[in-house]
């Protein structure tokens, strides 16, 4: 990997080749622009179909790629097509992977450390499929108020797919857990450009790692994972944010204690108790299980609806780390239960809809509120945190009657 580590001279030489003139936006081939309506801006983003294997995506960043799904993709069905699923890398990933040469090292607190080929992984156990939502912990960060720094996502850093693979516990069994095994840590082929910078490695507690639905997956909606989505293998932890769904999996390491690596011990953390933007020192916990969320997808903010006519609103919802129980359409001082669509499992999107007999006037600041079977319900006010993680405030919009 030495050629990917950069000296200061190499960094400058690389940058110098591309000193083109501004303006920065709208330079992507065949793309348009979209306004993410982030409070205070900047809010405009280019869109492009230029990434191989991807349809029209919102470009948050070309390198390493950060591509957001336009909300219109969520208007139909519950599965997000592979070419519209969001893309998120912290560091550059390899642009080529040879299947026969790829190995997954399973080591740490195990009885026999092993190095597995892709065929070894596929043969490690029963093939399992699970429909699950993959959502970035920072989804919706750009909508935070007050704003916070980091990737300025709208709400499109999420998607739902059918994942195919083997159980992580069957892969762990190839090595055998040693006494004291407490966590399982994953690393992929994406490594920092600089020596000493933290590699993007993540770990989960053993009770989660041994769940029947936690996978080492190779398939996404019946297709092989693409490079952008983590070829050849990625971890799938249904109900947990995708920061744990390590892509291009190359190392599985069993830990006997807490994980003190940067992306677990120092980042991807949220306040242990609610705070305000003025709170200075506060204890934090890792951002892990997803809370419930719901979105109106049939209409956009400010859209005009027909006065005196019936109106059907619909959209998607999720229970997070437990099945969705109900969705209500909420306004100022009123709420109406919504009808839920087909159930594709506790970790999938579920559609909701509601029919209003007659539009009597504007719908000011309406939203949908999801509740899961554990009783977790979307809050009225944002649980603000300095990294903009785990947003699940009720999203509001206004419809004008005419």
């Amino acid at each position, binding site marked *: 990997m030495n050629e990917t580590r950069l*000296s200061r001279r190499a960094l*400058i030489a690389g*940058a*110098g080749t*591309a000193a*083109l003139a*501004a*303006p*920065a936006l709208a*330079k992507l081939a065949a793309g348009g622009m979209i306004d993410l309506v982030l409070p*205070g801006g*900047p809010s*405009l983003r280019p869109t492009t179909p230029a990434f*191989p294997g991807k349809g029209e995506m919102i*470009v948050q*960043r*070309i*390198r390493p*790629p950060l591509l957001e799904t336009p909300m219109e993709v969520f208007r139909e069905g519950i599965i997000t097509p592979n070419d519209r699923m969001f893309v998120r890398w912290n*560091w*550059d990933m390899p*642009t*080529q992977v*040879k*299947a026969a040469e*790829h190995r997954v090292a399973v080591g740490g607190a195990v009885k026999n450390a092993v190095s597995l080929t*892709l065929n070894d992984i*596929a*043969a490690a156990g*029963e*093939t*399992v*499929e*699970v429909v*699950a939502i993959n959502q970035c912990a920072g989804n919706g960060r750009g909508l935070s108020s007050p*704003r*916070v*720094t980091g990737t*300025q996502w709208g709400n499109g850093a999420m998607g739902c797919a059918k994942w*195919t693979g083997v159980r992580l516990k069957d892969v762990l069994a190839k090595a055998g857990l040693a006494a004291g095994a407490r966590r399982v840590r994953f690393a992929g082929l994406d490594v*920092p*450009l*600089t*020596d*000493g*910078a*933290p590699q993007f490695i993540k770990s989960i507690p053993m009770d989660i790692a041994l769940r*029947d*639905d936690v996978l080492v997956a*190779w398939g996404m909606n019946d297709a*092989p994972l*693409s*490079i952008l989505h983590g070829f050849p293998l990625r971890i799938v932890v*249904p109900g947990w944010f995708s920061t744990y769904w390590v892509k291009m999996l190359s190392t599985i390491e069993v830990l006997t204690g807490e994980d003190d690596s*940067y992306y677990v011990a120092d980042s991807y953390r949220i306040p242990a108790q609610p705070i305000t933007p003025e709170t200075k020192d506060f204890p934090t916990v890792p951002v892990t299980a997803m809370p419930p969320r719901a979105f109106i997808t049939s209409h956009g903010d400010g859209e005009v609806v027909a006065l005196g006519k019936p109106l059907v609103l619909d959209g998607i919802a999720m229970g997070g780390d437990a*099945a969705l129980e109900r969705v209500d359409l909420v306004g100022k001082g009123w709420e109406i239960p919504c009808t839920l669509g087909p159930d594709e*499992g*506790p*970790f*999938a999107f579920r559609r909701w809809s509601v029919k209003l007999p007659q539009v009597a006037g504007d719908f000011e600041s309406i939203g949908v509120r999801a509740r899961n079977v554990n009783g977790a319900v979307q809050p009225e006010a944002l649980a603000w945190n300095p990294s903009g993680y785990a947003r699940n405030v009720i999203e509001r919009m206004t419809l004008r009657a005419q």
Partner: protein
Amino acid sequence: MRAAAALILALALAGCDSAPKVVFADASITLPDDPIDLPEGPGRDAVIENCTACHSPSTMLQQPKVSAEKWESIVGKMRKLYKAPVDEAAVPAIVAYMMHVQSLPEASR
């Protein structure tokens, strides 16, 4: 538990134990060029030199408006945490450029 309902167990072996369940082919991708476009302004060269090796300029340009102190702390994080080889002498110019860009109307960024 309801979690079990989510699992659709695929029909693994239909008779022949040795048939591979999945065939892995090589994969590669050619990513679009990263044009490294930054609006004109004092300090632009310092930002191009120091801040565009690991990520596209949109990483900086899309941030909400923050203070000069916050930009200093972001540059500090790049150096200390990510080991960005940033020239110490260039830091004031980088901060000044980011403050300048954040004062521009969005359409000209």
